[in-house]
C-alpha cells in the first residue's frame, strides 16, 4: 500500500462570521489548500467534508457548487468534534487503498455562542439543574475534578494551560484571540463550572481548514517532494466500555487506545514526537491528555505544566497554535486545522511560533459520544 502525503493545506483565520455561509468558508479554505499544492479542483478525485451543525444538509456538495461541480464523489462526515479528523482519515483511507491518488479534505463549522451541550434533558423534558448538568463545561469540569481526585491537581495548574495557549496564540495570525492572559486574569475570570473559569473554556468560532491528500506515486510525479508531509499514522477509535462511560463520557480510555495504536502504526514512541496539537476544548482536558498521550507518567501532568516543558521552547511544545482555547474551536474544522498546524511546523513555515527543528508531530481530537482521532505527521 502507498504511503500517504499531505501536499497542500491551509485554513482561514478563525473568527465570528455570521454573515458568511458554511459553503463559502469551506470553499475558501479548499482554494487556499489547492493553491498551496499548486493544483486545481479538477485534479481532485473525491471530497471528504467534516461538519456537525449542518450535517444533514450536504455541506460537501454545497462546497463543490462554490468550487466547480466536477461530479466527483463527496462524503460528508459528522463525528462531533472529531468530524474534521474523521473526514481527513477517510481521505487517507482512500489514498491508502489505492483507489485514488489525490483527494480534498475540508472541515468547516459555523457556531453559535454560549454553552455547548444544550443542558441535560430526558424524554424531551429539560432536566438541567434538576438531574445534574449536561453542558460541555460541566462535563469537562467533572473530568478535571476526577484528575484532582486521583492526583491532587489544582485550579492553578489547570489555569496555567490557558495562560500558555493564549500566549502561543499571540504568534498565530490565524487565531481568533491574540492576547496574553496572566494567571490572575484566568483564575479570576467568571467561574463557569468549577474548576473551569470562562478563560479555561474554548472559544466558539466559525472557521474552515483544508488538506490535499496524495499518494506517493502522484506526489513524486508532481514533483512536490520538497514540502510534502508523510502521514505516519492515522487512527480513529470509539469509546470502549468502562464502568463510568455510560454515565459520564470517558475521553481518557479512548485517547489511550487511539494513541497506542498510532504509536504502533508509526513505529515511534512519545519521546520521538516534537510537537502536539491536542484537544484542549477545556483547560482540564489538556492535562488529562498529557498522560493519555504518554508524554508524562500518570499523575505527572500537573508537574509537567508547572515545568514549562509544554510551552514553545520546552521539551514537547503543546498547542503552539493557541489551541482550541484561544485559536478557537469550530467543531468540524478543528481536526483539519490541527493537521495544518503540525504540517506547517514540520515544513518549517510557522514563523514566530516555529518549533525549532521539528520533523515529526502529532494531532489529537476527541468527539463527544465518544471518539478519538490521532494522526502522526512527519516531513517527507
Amino acid at each position, binding site marked *: 500500500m502507498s504511503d500517504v502525503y499531505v501536499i497542500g493545506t491551509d485554513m482561514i483565520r478563525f473568527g465570528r462570521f455570521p454573515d458568511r455561509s458554511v459553503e463559502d468558508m469551506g470553499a475558501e479554505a479548499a482554494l487556499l489548500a489547492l493553491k498551496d499544492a499548486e493544483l486545481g479542483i479538477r485534479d481532485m478525485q473525491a471530497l471528504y467534508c467534516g461538519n456537525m451543525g449542518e450535517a444533514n444538509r450536504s455541506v460537501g456538495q454545497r462546497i463543490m457548487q462554490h468550487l466547480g461541480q466536477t461530479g466527483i464523489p463527496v462524503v460528508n462526515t459528522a463525528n462531533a468534534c472529531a468530524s474534521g479528523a474523521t473526514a481527513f482519515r477517510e481521505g487517507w483511507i482512500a489514498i491508502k487503498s489505492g483507489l485514488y491518488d489525490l483527494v480534498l479534505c475540508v472541515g468547516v463549522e459555523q457556531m453559535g455562542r454560549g*454553552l455547548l451541550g*444544550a*443542558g441535560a434533558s*430526558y*424524554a424531551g*423534558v*429539560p*432536566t*438541567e*439543574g*434538576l*438531574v*445534574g*448538568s449536561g*453542558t460541555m*463545561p*460541566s462535563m469537562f*469540569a*467533572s*473530568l*478535571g*475534578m*476526577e484528575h484532582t*481526585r486521583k492526583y491532587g491537581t489544582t485550579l492553578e495548574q489547570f489555569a496555567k494551560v490557558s495562560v500558555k495557549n493564549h500566549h502561543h496564540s499571540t504568534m498565530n495570525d490565524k487565531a481568533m484571540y491574540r492576547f496574553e492572559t496572566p494567571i490572575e486574569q484566568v483564575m479570576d475570570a*467568571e*467561574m*463557569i*463550572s*468549577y*474548576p*473551569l473559569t470562562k478563560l479555561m473554556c474554548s472559544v466558539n468560532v466559525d472557521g474552515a481548514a483544508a488538506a490535499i491528500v496524495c499518494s506517493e506515486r502522484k506526489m513524486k510525479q508532481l514533483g512536490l517532494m520538497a514540502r510534502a508531509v508523510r502521514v505516519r499514522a492515522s487512527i480513529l477509535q470509539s469509546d470502549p*466500555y468502562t*464502568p*463510568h462511560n*455510560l*454515565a*459520564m463520557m470517558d475521553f481518557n480510555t479512548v485517547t489511550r487506545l487511539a494513541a497506542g495504536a498510532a504509536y504502533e502504526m508509526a513505529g515511534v514512541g512519545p519521546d520521538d514526537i516534537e510537537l502536539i496539537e491536542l484537544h484542549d476544548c477545556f483547560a482540564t482536558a489538556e492535562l488529562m491528555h498529557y498522560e493519555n498521550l504518554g508524554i508524562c507518567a500518570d499523575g505527572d501532568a500537573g508537574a509537567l505544566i508547572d515545568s514549562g516543558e509544554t510551552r514553545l521552547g520546552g521539551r514537547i511544545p503543546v498547542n503552539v497554535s493557541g489551541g482550541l482555547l484561544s485559536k478557537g474551536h469550530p467543531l468540524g474544522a478543528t481536526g483539519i486545522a490541527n493537521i495544518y498546524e503540525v504540517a506547517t511546523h514540520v515544513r518549517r513555515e510557522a514563523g514566530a511560533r516555529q518549533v525549532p527543528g521539528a520533523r515529526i508531530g502529532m494531532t489529537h481530537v476527541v468527539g463527544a459520544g465518544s471518539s478519538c482521532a490521532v494522526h502522526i505527521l512527519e516531513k517527507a
Partner: protein
Amino acid sequence: MSDCEAASLRPLAPFVKIAADGKPYLEGWKCTACGEVLAVGGRRACPKCAAPGTLISIRLAEYGRLYTYTVVHRSMPGVATPFVAALVDLDGGGAIKGTLIGLDSAAIRFDMPLQVQFETLIATGENTARHVRHFFTASADGREAKG
C-alpha cells in the same frame, strides 16, 4: 396510590422507575455472562462483554459514594445556579449522575457516602405531567455505604 396515579408519574432519568405502589426505585441491569452491573441498560447486548441477550433487570442500591462532581455556576438560561452536578458509584455496582443537594461546597469530599432520594415535582400551568426526579444527599441515617 392507585395504579392510575402511579402511571401518571414521569421519571426524569432512564434508570428511575415507578413501582405499582407509586414508589420510585432505581432499575439496573446485570449481565449473566460477565456479571457487570449497568445503571443505564435496556439494550440488546452487554456493552462490556458483547454477549447478546444476557442483561437481566435488577434493583440498584440507593446508597453509594461520590466519585466526581462540579459546582455549576453558569448553566442554561433560566436554570438556577449554583448547583452541584455529581457522579455517584452505587453500592453493588452502577454509576449515575444527578444533583447533590443540602451540602455546602466546602463540605463535599470525594468518596463521601451519599443517599439517593426521590421527589415528585409539582406540575405547573397547563403541564399536567407529574415528574419524578432523583437527587443525592449526604447519607444521614447512619447507614454506611459499603465499598
